[in-house]
């Protein structure tokens, strides 16, 4: 299969007067952790919403493994192997932590039922340190744990590409490091690719194989973290000079 998982071609998204995405084009490659950075309001979350079918683009296409998915429903896109976390965590409050994961495992694989890959519920709970709160309800737990639940649920859907939206905002350096390790384990031992939106340049530099910078709804730079962070245009976009 080609190295390309996702390709966005000239994607435009308008809300009333505001143009959130202004002809954005980018590619997400297989086997890589891709970082996405850009100042607030640049359109990063809108991009995730368009890829996962929450929003349909005003124009332009989103292509997954060669087929256009911009018309599909969110759950259909999940069945094709893309899942996500949310900027503010969205646990399913009436289900326990374990039921959140079991629901994702059951429904994530689509009509085919549970895929027989080796991601077991207890395994994921342990890796993310949630094993002793399996029976408690998410809203009894802190924001950090709710972010872990979002991530664990996305992994349990059996998808091979997880979009992570600012999961480390407001975390202590130690908590950030444990997330970085988690991405590493799931990437290396389970072959799951990640696309990570983050503000913290240090963290992004350490986990991303490739970096894409988005500003004013367009992709203004891409490449290895070192190249991109030295790019003058990127520095300007950030400092708002």
């Amino acid at each position, binding site marked *: 299969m080609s190295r390309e998982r996702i390709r966005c071609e000239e994607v435009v998204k308008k809300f009333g*007067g*505001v143009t959130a995405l202004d002809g954005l084009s980018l590619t997400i490659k297989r086997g890589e952790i891709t970082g996405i950075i850009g*100042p*607030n*309001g640049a359109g990063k979350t809108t991009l995730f919403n368009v890829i996962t079918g929450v929003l349909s683009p005003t124009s332009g296409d989103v292509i997954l493994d060669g087929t256009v998915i911009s018309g599909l429903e969110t759950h259909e896109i999940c069945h094709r192997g893309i899942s996500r976390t949310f900027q503010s965590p969205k646990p399913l409050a009436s289900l326990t932590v374990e039921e959140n994961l079991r629901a994702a495992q059951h429904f994530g694989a689509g009509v085919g039922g549970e895929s027989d890959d080796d991601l077991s519920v207890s395994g994921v709970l342990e890796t993310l340190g949630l094993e002793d709160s399996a029976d408690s309800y998410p809203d009894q737990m*802190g*924001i950090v744990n709710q972010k872990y639940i979002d991530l664990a649920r996305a992994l349990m859907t059996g998808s091979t590409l997880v979009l992570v939206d*600012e999961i480390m*905002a*407001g*975390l*202590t*350096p130690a908590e950030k490091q444990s997330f970085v390790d988690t991405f590493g384990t799931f990437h290396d031992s389970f072959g799951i690719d990640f696309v990570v939106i983050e*503000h*913290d*340049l*240090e*963290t992004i530099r350490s986990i991303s194989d490739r970096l894409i910078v988005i500003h*004013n709804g367009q992709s203004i730079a891409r490449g290895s973290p070192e190249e991109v962070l030295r790019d003058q245009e990127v520095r300007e976009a*950030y*400092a*708002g*000079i």
Partner: protein
Amino acid sequence: MPESELLSVDGLSAGYDELDVITDITLSVQRGDIVSILGPNGAGKTTLMRALIGLLTPSAGTICFEGVEVTDATVPERIRAGISLVPEENHVFKDMTVKENLVLSAATKTKDRKRERIEHVYDLFPRLDERRGQRAGTLSGGEAQMLSLGQALVTEPDLLLLDEPSLGLAPALVEQMFDIVGRINEDGVTVVLVEQQVKSSVDISDWVYVLSTGQIEDSGPASEIGAVEEIMSAYLGGA
């Protein structure tokens, strides 16, 4: 509290249903200053602003305004005392006209004082004067931001809290926004500004606080706060 101190916050913690987003914040704002609060997304900037205006009751700490403790004061009481907030996303009343939005926000003022303040806002924003009779829902992003600012200014505040006024504005308008903040300050209004635009904020500020993971990382006069690079790395969560 030194005479010139308009607002003093001591050991403030606040958040949403028992989860504190900001913890043990202590800061002081001198009368007539522009104070910038910088920090990455999720550092607690908006939570701090909501606690200052009274939308959020803090779990600990005190807030004093002009020497009077307002920690438990309601929003209307704080507005009457002279504080007002321009929220992050604008909350203008879309189905009401620009004029009605301003009239309603100036409710605490006497009749003729109200007309004077509304005229003052129309001078500051001629575009709003032109579209006075139109529904606020028809305004562009920039115009709606001006109206939101106008709604705060009609109450004749001594302290104006501005939560990311440049968010979602086209680059040209951002320039204009910072000029307006400067002019408002020259009219004698003290401003606390929360912004993403690091360089432009520092340029117009007298004092800067850098907030990260709910705590104040760094603070000092704008001139000595150090090169923009330093702030950027602190702001962007550098090691």
